[in-house]
């Protein structure tokens, strides 16, 4: 039976700038929920304030893809806020995967630079300077369901064997982790 238990308010706000035209796409599990083309030289705030039906419990992949045809030094993307079901996913709790560019490729041969870049990627903060993908993989469901692998895909299981993703959005707001409770 269909349930609206996982139809949750999903608020995402971000801001971007580049000297040249660029685009931003937000998708959840490959379903595009927002796409914006941003003109060059303009700061633009982009907001998604809507309900999204996550359908069932599990690890969900929220991806912000930032693309541009032309590279320049003066460009940035800031993730302002992600709030699902009145629980915040902190912007820096992401996986940042920059697209290869000339600068990154050139640095790969220098061990010191390579390490610096790795640090920026693993510990990125909320502002991103290279075009790429920023992904969040929260578990959405009840805390108890989370501990069973019966509802998980094989890639979710693989990921959980390696790490312990601590992004958790509870469908019951009263059960939300204290520090995660936020209004949009």
């Amino acid at each position: 039976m269909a349930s609206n238990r996982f139809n949750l308010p999903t608020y995402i706000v971000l801001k971007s700038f580049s000297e040249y035209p660029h685009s931003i796409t937000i998708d959840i599990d490959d379903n595009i929920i927002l796409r914006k083309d941003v003109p060059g030289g303009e700061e633009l705030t982009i907001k998604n304030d809507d309900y999204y039906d996550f359908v069932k419990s599990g690890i969900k992949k929220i991806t912000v893809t930032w693309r541009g045809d032309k590279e320049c030094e003066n460009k940035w993307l800031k993730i302002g806020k992600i709030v699902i079901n009145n629980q915040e996913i902190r912007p820096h709790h992401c996986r940042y995967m920059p697209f290869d560019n000339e600068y990154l490729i050139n640095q790969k041969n220098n061990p010191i630079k390579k390490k610096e870049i790795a640090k920026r990627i693993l510990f990125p903060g909320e502002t991103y300077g290279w075009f790429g993908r920023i992904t969040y993989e929260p578990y959405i469901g009840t805390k108890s369901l989370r501990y069973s692998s019966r509802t998980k895909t094989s890639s979710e299981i693989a990921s959980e064997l390696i790490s312990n993703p601590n992004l958790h959005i509870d469908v019951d707001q009263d059960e939300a982790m204290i520090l995660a409770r936020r209004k949009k």
Partner: protein
Amino acid sequence: MTMKVNRYDNFTKCRSLILGSLNWSLIEMMDDKQDRIYFTEVFHSVDETLSEMEKVFVRFDIEVVRPEPLLFDKDRPLVTPFLTMPAVKNSLTPYDTFLCLKDTVVECPSVTDLAFFDHVQYKHIWQKCFDNGSKWMAAPIPTHAPDQFDLDEERTHGEILFDGPALEPVGDVLLSSEKSVINDRGRRWIEQWYPEFKHHTVKGTNGHLDGYFTILKPGLIMSIIPKDKLPDIFKSWTVINPPEASFAQPEVANRFIQDDDFENTTIGVNNFSLDEENIIVMKHIVDHHPNVIREIEKHGINCIPISYDAVRVLGIGFSCMTGAINRDGQFENYF
């Protein structure tokens, strides 16, 4: 003899501990090439953190033992009657599936079914402790059968389940999480085996206790739970609250003018006490929250910073990565 279980708290002088190891072979499980590249970077970074931690432990005369990761073999899935998994869990979190309490190590019936075979990576450690006179037991082995789950989604009344960090001894007191990481039968099993402790449930906790607070020394606790929500026994204690306010700004407009790395600086309570005067904390906390560090140091506790860039990727703190086997503390009344 330090490789002998003695644990009554998380703050007295630590003599021996397990420090987690990375199971590099697990990266082979990932289908996506980008994921494999990314996690290789993550593991390199964590490896440096672990080395740094080990150096500090050795400097403090703490005996360090490591788990032996069971390598991933795609042709050998791990199977129980109700569960098939491709590999054993990463051996990075020794604290999760074992409970060292008094003179005994308890192999825990973890709420996480994927931790079912975790114990194979630690056998050599507990054998050594056993040979040195420690007691060693396992709680009833869970089935993780569907009927246990379907009838009881919240897992309140099902088979005995609990994780190691769902319980924290403080001398003669044993604190426990309220739910999710321990259930009713799990709590009763613990109370049955350890009737000598005064048992207190920390209301409102639905995760591991080390994610909610660190007891720094008798009378001093760092906690995200406000003082009035902690068990009454903490009434006379000093509570240091991490700066929760820094997690979110009221207006996004203001957020955009914050320092770029502002959000990297959320303080964690998931630290590790070497003794009552020394604690290891994440370096970015020292860098970005000097006031909290000063507050801790005001109480005579030295904060030793260790770089840990991959903390957000792994969701694992210092406390999870270390499992104390032997501390000086005894069955005392700290309240």
